[in-house]
């Protein structure tokens, strides 16, 4: 199925309409990339500042307790929402969906453009939060009431309002984007592109978009209710409380209600980031191992089941808030069940590599790094999913290590792998490989150097979200040495991300020119008449799809790959045998 062929509408336009107010999904994707990278850079600097305070307390005088909590909050929120979610859905989703399904554009291009500008507005509001009286909020990225809006918490006057308004704006932007992605996948696929012929990248982004449409409303609702508590004095989440010796006038609200709403969004959010990463890494591994993905159907089922299960595990983030033991049992069980489809995916990636013609290109290196970091992060998730283990480890550095491995480093590895893979399609040039290898090895080894010791610190009982760790008898002095080591590692890894940014810019001008399909990929995005693709993507005629996206090393073929739009030439039997 596809939208009518309206190639004539994709003519040349003025600079403003082509690059600023563009409705071309590729330009919008790049706008998303640039904005998310820019705000991600802010989050990177904030993480450096936090680590300097922990590793070398007092080294930077301007970091007091308030500033530390503000950095911590903004770092978390930016990374999860404004960088990873925006980049995977807004960036990769926008660029790849229409190209991979053979469409000319998103089905609602104007809405798509609006989605980006609202996202940009959300980012601007967020950044403005730094400069309002009292600074940005320091409530932690979970924004738990009552402390988030009471005096004593940094940014409780204006910072929290800017944060909430920014989040609500982001949700509206994400909804506009999500509507576009889902409708485009379901309504605008080209001839022959059945759902089960779609590359797993599209499956991942499609299901993540559906999840976003269902989960983000919870953030929207909780954001509005907290804004009402803060500005209008309602008591949705605010209990009767004495704050700083004063009665702020709240009564009977439920902070737990906020936690339920927040995590009803917050846990699916993990998979909103992870599923596109799963999809992309599947395609990278298959292409760079020159082998069809192992268990394609299982991979699709796993994506769908992970999405469904992720909506019934949220309260495992709330074990320490207190709940009926039967609920604890239920949420622990569902959390462990979700490990099954996830494990299937890990096995299938590994089995795809098994006996593959593995090319150790940068996308492949980052993909393998993803499997490794995701596996480690996932295994510690099994620890934390159990109530009895979670209680002592909750709010320690073990949790910090877990989610940074599984939701931080793992998806970031995929982002890098994907950028190295698709950069030639976007720019027509290859990224510099030497710089890329430096970037990869330092990032990969560095991520272990940073987060492996954190598990140990967590088991020691080192609490997270503390500004300073002096005079705690249960934390041995050696922990400080480890903290200093982690900080040095984090600074080095951070610096090499700047090298990556340099590579992006340098290669754009000086990079080696890429051939039309440098990785010899089968999926449709590499089969456009022009690389980089022009507005409308497909020239006069949209492609027809004849096969799935993983025909690598098909017996009886001289080439080791068959693009999806290559018709069948008396080869049915070969396929049936496989």
């Amino acid at each position: 199925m596809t939208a009518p062929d309206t190639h004539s509408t994709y003519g040349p336009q003025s600079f403003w309409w082509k690059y600023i107010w563009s409705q071309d999904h590729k330009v919008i994707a790049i706008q998303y990339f640039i904005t998310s990278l820019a705000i991600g850079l802010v989050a990177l600097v904030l993480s450096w500042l936090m680590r300097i305070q922990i590793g070398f307390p007092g080294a930077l005088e301007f970091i007091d307790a308030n500033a530390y909590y503000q950095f911590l909050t903004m770092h978390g929120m930016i990374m999860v929402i404004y960088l990873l979610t925006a980049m995977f859905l807004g960036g990769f989703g926008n660029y790849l969906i229409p190209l991979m399904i053979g469409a000319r554009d998103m089905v609602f291009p104007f809405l798509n453009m609006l989605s980006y500008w609202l996202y940009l507005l959300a980012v601007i509001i967020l950044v403005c939060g730094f400069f309002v009286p009292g600074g940005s909020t320091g409530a932690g990225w979970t924004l738990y009431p009552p402390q988030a809006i009471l005096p004593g918490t940094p940014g409780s006057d204006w910072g929290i309002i800017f944060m909430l308004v920014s989040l609500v704006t982001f949700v509206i932007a994400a909804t506009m984007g999500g509507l576009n992605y889902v409708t485009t996948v379901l309504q605008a696929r080209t001839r022959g592109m059945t759902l089960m012929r779609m590359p797993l990248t599209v499956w991942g982004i499609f299901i993540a978009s559906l999840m976003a449409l269902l989960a983000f409303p919870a953030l929207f609702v909780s954001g509005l209710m907290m804004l009402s508590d803060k500005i209008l004095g309602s008591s949705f989440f605010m209990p009767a409380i004495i704050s700083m010796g004063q009665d702020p006038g709240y009564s009977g609200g439920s902070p737990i209600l906020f936690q339920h709403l927040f995590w009803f969004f917050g846990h699916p959010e993990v998979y909103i980031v992870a599923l596109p990463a799963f999809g992309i890494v599947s395609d990278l591994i298959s292409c760079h191992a020159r082998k069809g993905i192992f268990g394609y159907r299982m991979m699709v089922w796993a994506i769908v089941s992970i999405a469904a299960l992720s909506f019934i595990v949220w309260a495992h983030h709330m074990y320490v808030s207190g709940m009926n033991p039967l609920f604890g049992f239920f949420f622990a069980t569902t959390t462990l069940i979700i490990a099954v489809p996830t494990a299937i995916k890990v096995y299938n990636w590994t089995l795809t590599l098994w006996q593959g013609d593995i090319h150790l290109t940068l996308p492949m290196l980052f993909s393998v790094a993803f499997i490794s970091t995701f596996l480690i992060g996932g295994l510690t998730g099994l620890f934390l999913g159990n109530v009895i283990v979670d209680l002592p480890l909750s709010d320690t550095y073990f949790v910090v290590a877990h989610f940074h491995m599984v939701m931080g480093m793992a998806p970031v590895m995929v982002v890098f792998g994907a950028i190295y893979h698709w950069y030639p399609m976007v720019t027509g040039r290859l990224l510099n490989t030497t710089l890329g290898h430096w970037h990869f090895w330092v990032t990969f080894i560095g991520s272990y150097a940073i987060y492996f010791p954190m598990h140990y610190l967590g088991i020691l009982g080192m609490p997270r979200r503390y500004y300073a760790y002096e005079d705690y008898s249960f934390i041995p002095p050696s922990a400080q040495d480890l903290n200093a080591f982690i900080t040095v590692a984090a600074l080095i890894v951070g610096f090499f991300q700047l090298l990556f940014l340099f590579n992006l810019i340098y290669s754009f001008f000086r990079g080696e020119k890429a051939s039309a399909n440098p990785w010899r990929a089968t999926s449709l995005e590499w089969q456009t008449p022009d690389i980089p693709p022009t507005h409308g993507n497909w020239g006069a005629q949209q492609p027809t799809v004849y096969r799935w996206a993983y025909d690598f090393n098909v017996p009886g073929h001289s080439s080791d790959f068959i693009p999806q739009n290559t018709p069948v030439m008396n080869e049915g039997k070969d396929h049936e045998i496989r």
Partner: protein
Amino acid sequence: MRFVNTLAEKPWLNPDDGQASANYMVQDQASINLFGLRLLLAVIFVVFALFVGAYNMRMTYGDVNDLPMHWRLILNTSILIFSSLILHIAYTGMDKALASKQAVEIQLQRRIKCLYLIAGMTALMFVVAQITLCQQLMNLGYSLAANPANSFFYLITGLHALHIIGGVIYWCYCYRLCWQTDSWKTTETRQALHHQMRLCANYWHGLLLIWLMLLSLLLMT
């Protein structure tokens, strides 16, 4: 079931010789728009369903006062039902206009325009009625911060009214189309108008259903 069957396909077994393109159906922009709108309504429904969940959870705390506004709410609801009904009649009237091969009779055009105008005006009337209800409650001392039931009431009705206003803005666009003589000239232009009215009617009905869900919640608790 269809989705499960789809997921059971084995794409690696059946590279085809153009079979899929033989069964290829062009999705027109109208059905894409309708699909997108229904998806949007589903998302709006989720937003309000979450409010319902939060409301139910909060209402168990036992510190909730009832709001004295049942009859007014029912009256306002009847305005919204009327609006939705009229819009539906206008839209079905367009079916007749669409079937017409010749120019559409002036009388039918007038009838549709008139019904369309009434639908929009009554929707606006609903919003105004909701605002006056809120003002009345405030005057009686039921301020937003006084009780959780009040807070939920104002937030839910406010957000619903905002969605209605969004619909009214779209209605204005459709109404402008309705008044353009060109919109009635050819089958294609009539089809375009019919499509816009269909989208508008779908949105109206969707918001009515959501409001009925909210009303039952407000009346039952």
